[in-house]
């Protein structure tokens, strides 16, 4: 089965076969023999060409992978879904994007105004939750279409804060 993984500009092609015991994985043309065990709590014990790793994989298409204290995030699709996505054009962070509160909290500061143009990853609003201030960033470059909250407002988790188009 063939997979395509993307994060930012980078794309990786991954080919996976399974013989009932072991996996053969070809990543960007490089072939690896992998012994994989799925353990309690969704932890994978991987022996990749004999090297031992413990890996935590979360999510289905948008995956978060934790290995040796580092976090990797990317999108992974198999060939069939990839073709479907390409055809429907809904692949990247295109169109309207909504910045949402990750959890209930208080809007401490709004860093942009309606009509501002923003870069991808630029901070747009600061929300205080769990005694910490968190800067929420623009998922893409664009223009601030609307701001749904005021400074000082209490917001629920997943509440829409800023719309960027």
């Amino acid at each position: 089965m063939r997979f395509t993984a993307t994060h930012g500009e980078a794309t990786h092609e991954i080919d996976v076969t399974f013989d009932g015991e072991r996996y053969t994985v070809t990543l960007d043309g490089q072939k690896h023999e992998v012994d994989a065990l799925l353990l309690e709590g969704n932890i994978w014990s991987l022996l990749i060409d004999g090297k031992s790793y413990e890996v935590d994989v979360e999510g289905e298409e948008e995956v978060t992978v934790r290995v040796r204290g580092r976090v990797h995030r990317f999108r992974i699709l198999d060939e069939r879904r990839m073709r479907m996505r390409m055809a429907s054009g809904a692949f990247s962070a295109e169109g309207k994007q909504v910045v949402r509160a990750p959890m209930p909290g208080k809007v401490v500061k709004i860093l942009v105004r309606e009509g501002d143009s923003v870069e991808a990853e630029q901070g747009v609003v600061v929300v205080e939750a769990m005694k910490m201030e968190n800067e929420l960033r623009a998922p893409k470059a664009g223009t601030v279409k609307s701001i749904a909250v005021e400074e000082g407002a209490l917001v629920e988790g997943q509440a829409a804060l800023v719309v960027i188009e």
Partner: protein
Amino acid sequence: MKRPFKKILVANRGEIAVRVMRTCREMGIRTVAIYSDPDRASLHVRYAGEAYRVGPAPSRESYLRIDKIVEIARASGAEAVHPGYGFLSENPDFARALEEAGLVLIGPPAESMEAMGEKTRARRQMIAAGVPVVPGTEDPIEDEAQALEYARSIGFPVMLKAAAGGGGKGMRKVDTEEAFPSAWRGARREAASSFSDDRVYIEKFLDKPRHVEIQVLADAHGTVIHLGERECSVQRRHQKVIEETPSPIVDAEMRARMGEVARQAARAVGYVGAGTVEFLVDADRNFYFLEMNTRLQVEHPITEMVNDGVDLVRHQILIAGGEKLSLQQEEIAPRGHAIEARIYAEDPDRNFMPTPGAITYIRQPGGPGIRVDSGVYSGWTVPMYYDPMIAKLCARGPDRETAIARLDRALSEYLIAGITTNIGWLRRVLAQPQFVSGDYDTGFLDQAQEAIAASMKGGKEEVALIAAAIASYDRQRRLAVRSTFSPSEHSGSKWKLLGRLRTLGRGV
């Protein structure tokens, strides 16, 4: 064994509640937990002998409800209350309410809390007691123009601090005269919202300041001892991240002088119990009183580790029971080196955003010289309502280098799945040359921030990609296998299903 109380209520949650109850168990004292609704399944509730609901999620309606906590303590037959740190631990009203109800607070008298709680009053009292303080205003300043004039007279940079403050709230460093007005207003606003008190005072900003604190123990019979220092200069936004003892800059002579000043400070306010006197140390190793924390500190375990395993909570309990301190200053001789890292449910890649959620798996580190004080377990959901610190990991070794290597090794063993934590980031901090050299101050994390972030990039990306591909492949194959079974067979015998999946080379 001495057992001054038969039953103690712990008015806290998380790792510190468990920490306190551990000592209670060792002393044969029964324990009572309190919990808010989202904490019903928390470790401290499972660990306690008894547990009672105190209210809904918000702290204000649960862990800060003095009336309810007093009521639960009385109804459960507890004789004493341990407040932990945070929440009501430095609240004199709580101390008085317990006293009125005939309960013992395992902590200092309300008067000591008050004397140290208001920062400008504490400064005045320390000056009177001959304790060195950072140059600054004796009283809060009301008028902005007057404040600016004072700042000019001591010279920039200056620090603005909330009179009622603590924990970094309402605290601003001001580098220039131009930046003063907005910082002044910001500090007052933050002070007002955090402490309902907008009074602010000014201190001289010390060059390359280090944050070093002294642990003290005082009994009700006039004995005050100190147990050496903790170096707490690794801070992010005024929050401590890594602490170690001894401090790389404190030698025996300086330790003795600081310890003496800390004892003096404790005596000046009639202190009883375990407390911590915080100092700022400048580049020339002059030290100045900063504040006194009238409670057990988060980082107390490293002091216990280098002092022959002395149990500070046990001493707190014995002191609260009226016992005389069994330790003498002459006996105190810290040995070896200990270091603590605070494990947070937060994502360093996303500006340290808290990451509440379900922990699907956890493997605690172990081995030589390791201590874990944890408040979590596999399957528990980290609630979104409280401080995101989930555990403290401490390492001890004969010397600094060994202790750091052990902490790094233990961090590499610490496996927490389901939520993102700062474990990987902590390892990068330990690897920074400035930290390794020991020559760091409170500006260290700010300066090293980018170097740390850069060293977080890359890593085993190919392993992550292979893992994600295998996980996707495995999921789809299992879905395909399931759909070939009839529903009756599927629900009828899980064992049969398991057997068939096994013959296909795959566990469930």
